[in-house]
């Protein structure tokens, strides 16, 4: 193997992408857009604030204070509904998922219970809701929690069981900080897989691979130059993602030697898979479809976007067989938990996988067009 040949091939590939500004832009822009979009969506995940529609049929001091108490819980932004309106019809007409209805006689019941000490006195607050809404059950659970707190307070008894939160981390992390390692892993996978499949299919279709097959360049030199090329793009892309994350979301992550290690192993693994795919697809369109078939399940099942614990058991088992899962876990172990042992374990798993697919990728690389 000649470093001179690998270097020359790397130069040609880098110059090609450098001079194709549009491709270069979208290569860098895609993961940054993902970070900005998801980061913005999840920025307030720790302070969920739902809109809550309330219809106060009692229109009393007590009902007004109760509504204010709901608003002060920090969980809801209260929007009042006209007492004369039909709540069911209001939900349909205004595409609202839930209206909380405070009945007439609310204040009378409160007085009976709190002043006259009539413990049989009670009141029913009605949730009128649209079951097709994905967030309505969460809203009702939170409401039940708030109402349980009010009931406890009115009973005048101290709680028997109290909960105390204790994080394993010394610092409280934002959701975006858990999200970024997943996005880096996903972006590097996409770059490497699509980059390899698209580039090699295009060069084969144009006959450039056929020309190269009549020169002394070896398959190992070609694949190695591909890996270095994708690694450089992945490093540039990761730097861009981190800069945006620090600048926009003020994240705080451990940046250490594990980051380039996991990027390199990720590149090795997915360039290898790309080479194997390129062997079996003939046209550029089928190449993109094949790369999608690999990357999409990987992206959603391996925990890049959400924890795999949210998935059914058999999917969790499947997720643990995916190489991207170990890149995600390894990056989180190093960037968030600063856990070198876990990072070492994950890097060993992805390293073995990368070595196997790299060798298979070299074997699968075929110079002739197969006519």
């Amino acid at each position, binding site marked *: 193997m*000649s470093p*001179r*040949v690998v270097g*020359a*091939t790397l*130069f*040609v590939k880098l*110059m*090609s992408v450098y*001079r*194709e500004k549009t491709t270069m832009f979208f290569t860098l822009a895609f993961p940054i857009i993902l970070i900005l979009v998801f980061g913005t969506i999840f920025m307030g995940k720790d302070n969920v604030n739902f809109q809550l529609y309330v219809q106060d049929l009692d229109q009393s001091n007590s009902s007004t204070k109760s509504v204010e108490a709901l608003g002060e819980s920090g969980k809801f932004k209260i929007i009042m509904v006209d007492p004369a309106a039909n709540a069911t019809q209001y939900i349909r007409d205004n595409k609202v998922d839930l209206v909380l209805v405070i009945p007439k006689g609310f204040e009378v019941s409160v007085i009976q219970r709190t002043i006259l000490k009539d413990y049989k006195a009670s009141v029913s607050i009605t949730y009128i809701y649209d079951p097709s809404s994905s967030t309505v059950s969460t809203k009702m659970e939170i409401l039940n929690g708030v109402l349980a707190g009010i009931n406890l307070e009115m009973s005048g008894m101290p709680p028997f069981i109290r909960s105390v939160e204790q994080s394993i981390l010394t610092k409280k992390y934002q959701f975006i900080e858990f999200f970024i390692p997943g996005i880096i892993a996903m972006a590097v996978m996409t770059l490497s897989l699509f980059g390899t499949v698209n580039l090699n299919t295009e060069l084969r279709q*144009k*006959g*450039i691979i*056929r*020309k*190269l*097959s*009549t*020169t*002394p*360049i070896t398959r190992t030199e070609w694949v190695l130059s591909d890996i270095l090329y994708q690694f450089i793009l992945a490093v540039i892309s990761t730097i861009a993602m981190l800069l945006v994350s620090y600048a926009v979301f003020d994240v705080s992550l451990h940046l250490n030697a594990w980051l380039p290690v996991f990027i390199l192993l990720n590149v090795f693994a997915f360039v290898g898979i790309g080479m194997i795919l390129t062997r079996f697809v003939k046209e550029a369109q089928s190449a993109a479809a094949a790369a999608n078939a690999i990357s999409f399940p990987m992206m959603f099942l391996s925990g890049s976007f959400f924890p795999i614990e949210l998935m059914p058991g058999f999917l969790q088992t499947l997720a643990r067989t995916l190489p991207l899962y170990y890149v995600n876990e390894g990056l989180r172990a190093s960037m968030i938990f600063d856990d070198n042992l876990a990072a070492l374990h994950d890097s060993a798993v992805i390293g073995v996988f990368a070595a196997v697919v790299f060798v298979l990728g070299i074997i699968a690389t075929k*110079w*002739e067009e197969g*006519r």
Partner: protein
Amino acid sequence: MTKESDYAIEVENLTKRYGDLLSVNDISFTVNRGEVFALLGPNGAGKTTAVEIIDTIRTPTSGKVTLLGMDVSKKKHDIVSRIGVLPQGFSSFDRITVRETLQYYSRLYRGRNTDIDRLIELVNLKDKSKEQYRNLSGGLRQRLGIALALVHDPEVVFLDEPTTGLDPRARHEVWEVLQGLKERGKTVLLTTHYMEEAELLADTVAIISKGKIIAMGSPGELIETNAKYHILTLQSVDEKVFEIVRKLGFEPVLDNHKDIKIRVVHTNDVQQILSAIKNSGALHLGLDVRKPNLEEVFLKLTGEALRDGHAGEEGSA
């Protein structure tokens, strides 16, 4: 000196089969060092498959190819550094300049120091050396392809249809470059379906049809051996002339709707035709007698034209 080293290329009983399709059918030939050898045949004749087996891109179904004394199926790595190839439909990296492309391919041949400027001058690309490949015309691209085939000063050069798809001017520019190679004594294996190209450049021509070599020799020998007749062209003929000639037992072919071409073997044939026309009172405004060309030889041997649309133009006399 061994027998192998006398020849640059030796092909023995070469066959390539794709399923039921027999692309190359048991062909054998040799190419001397310093010789320009052309495989001449129509599209689909098996020229490219044959040359791609010889230049190591493909593997044969059976048969043996020896290149510079080495078996191509066993010594590919040693062979590729001694041959230069312009594949059919050559293409290169779109956004890399002419000079960068030559520098890149030069580096693939370890330890060779290529004079890039001299190479650029050889193929007349001096003004375009900073131009990216995507901005080059078809003729300029082919010239770059030829330069890449020569970048390491190879002993044998393979040029697969070097002028296909080019306009006549660009084709002549490429021919000038190829004539330069010939003058420098390079061994060249060329495939083409242009008769003029083979006649102009090749020392030896092998006519290939349906995967088989059906005739081989120098252009002059092929014509001499396979076409022992002349072509009589009667220009701007009267309509009656066609029928008069046909009745004499010849097979006239109408050319350009105004000339007819007749294959004649003896001088007497010409006299007989001219007398019959004169006696009938029909008119013709001129005549021409010439030897057939390679395309006509090809048509005679195979019954098919080298290029689409040429059967009726000049080949059927």
